[in-house]
């Protein structure tokens, strides 16, 4: 009974809503909805963050206000600490991530496109390896590669390759078979089918993997820098916490968040250029 009356109510309001001025009210609503959906939560969050420590409702020593954090970031930028840590961290991430792309993309294309039976055979093993918690493996990497740059880049590579590999394989395997038929009836050989149909058709899925990889790479970077490092943003955060320079710690946290966003947006930018033929707008992870 209750659900029935709710349905009636819903249709009622729908019809009255339409009878006013459908076009105007629709666009008007949508415009504001978009704005609100996009930025309102962030705005309210920042506002509360600013107000609560200022009023003393939250201890400002532990959680400084956004303005204090911004000022600290500016100071750390001026004295060169932040830029050098960013450079160190970014170079680690880009090296590990780049290496993962270099290995996992071709491997994924080959496994999904040319060696499907082999892929079927190794898939369970790859899944198990991909599921292994990378933080538990970090000591293993350190044992083999030492505590320097190599072990960090290697662990980032290790973490990043899985989503890239799995998504590339899936992307290639899920290409609509009728497109391959079209290519074959057009007289294309195996390599051309791959180049002209399989690769472009799989790009959207491949990019999902690349973006996931970038996120994983950042997670791993900070983890690795916190566990064993003397430079980088993860080290800055850890170090600042230990010596109770809380604003510095927060400056590091915010920088990491901003860099993550920047990396994700950059990949999204490339992705949109390459897959502009897709009707759907790609949503932000």
């Amino acid at each position, binding site marked *: 009974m209750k659900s029935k009356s709710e349905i009636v109510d819903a249709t009622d309001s729908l019809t009255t809503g339409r009878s006013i001025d459908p076009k105007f009210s629709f666009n008007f609503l949508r415009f504001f909805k978009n704005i609100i959906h996009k930025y309102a939560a962030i705005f309210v969050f920042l506002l509360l963050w600013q107000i609560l420590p200022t009023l003393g409702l939250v201890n400002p020593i532990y959680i400084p206000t956004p303005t204090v954090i911004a000022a600290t970031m500016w100071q750390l930028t001026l004295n060169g600490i932040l830029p050098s840590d960013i450079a160190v961290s970014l170079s680690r991430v880009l090296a590990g991530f780049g290496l993962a792309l270099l290995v996992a993309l071709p491997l994924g294309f080959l496994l999904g496109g040319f060696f499907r039976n082999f892929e079927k055979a190794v898939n369970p093993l790859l899944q198990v390896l991909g599921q292994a918690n990378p933080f538990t493996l970090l000591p293993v990497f350190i044992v083999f590669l030492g505590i320097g740059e190599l072990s960090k880049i290697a662990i980032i590579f290790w973490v990043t390759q899985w989503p890239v590999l799995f998504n590339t394989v899936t992307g290639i395997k899920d290409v*609509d078979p*009728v*497109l391959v*038929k*079209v*290519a*074959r*009836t*057009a*007289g*294309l050989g195996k390599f*051309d089918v791959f180049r*002209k*149909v399989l690769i*472009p*058709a799989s*790009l959207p899925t491949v990019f999902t993997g690349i973006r996931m990889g970038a996120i994983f790479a950042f997670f791993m970077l900070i983890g690795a820098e916190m566990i064993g490092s003397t430079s980088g943003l993860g080290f800055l955060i850890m170090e600042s916490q230990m010596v109770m320079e809380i604003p510095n710690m927060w400056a590091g946290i915010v920088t990491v968040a901003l860099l993550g966003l920047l990396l994700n947006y950059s990949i999204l930018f490339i992705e949109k250029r390459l*897959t502009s*033929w*897709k*009707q759907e707008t790609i949503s932000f992870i």
Partner: protein
Amino acid sequence: MNLSIEKGEFLVILGPSGCGKSTFLDIIAGLSEPDEGSVSLDGNVIKGPGLDRGVVFQQYALLPWRTALDNVTFALEANTDKEKREEIARNYLSLVGLSGFEDRYPYELSGGMKQRVAIARALAIEPEVLLMDEPFAAVDAQTREILQTDLLRITEDTHKTVVFITHSIEEAIFLADRVAVMTSRPGVIKTIIDVPISKESRYTDDIKSTPEFAKIRHELWELLKEEVVKSQETCSKCSVEDCRVVNDDQIKEVDL
């Protein structure tokens, strides 16, 4: 089955849906191999796909990352230079009534327009035979009628041999010179019926309401009815895989 198709003929293969007409077309296209028997074109046995056969698939099968024009040039890229193939593609797009839509991506086109692009693409390689696998199954009824008329005009103008697969009796009669009725299991050609309706009257008159049309429709329906019943009985018992095997067994020899 033994089936020979004349040059310039519009042959429609009519059969109940579900059980393996597409396999037959795939074999002519060279995409699948028959387990037994052979298909030959002008006396040469078909061994694989070739540019002497253009295929239009049931789904639109356009490459979504290519514009209408680039979809049509797709099969020409191996052996025609860029300017030449774009000129050919423009001509065929205009033939199917899509001038002005060259730069649109598939998602910007309606179902009917997408299938027009697919037809233009199949024609652009200037094949001897056009193979069509229920090409209008996915478009709405009104668009379908327009596409049928246009297809008839285009194939007549270009003197193409057409093998067209459908499960719609009306579509079959409207398009065909001859209709081959295919049984469901095993997939053999049961009967071949001539459609003695002139092409001119198909464009102009409302032929679907003539007694002649009704007579052929009735005849085909009688032939098809038991196959539909049979296919529903057998198809519920077996997998599509089995279906394919059974149908392949029956294809012995086809001459185009």
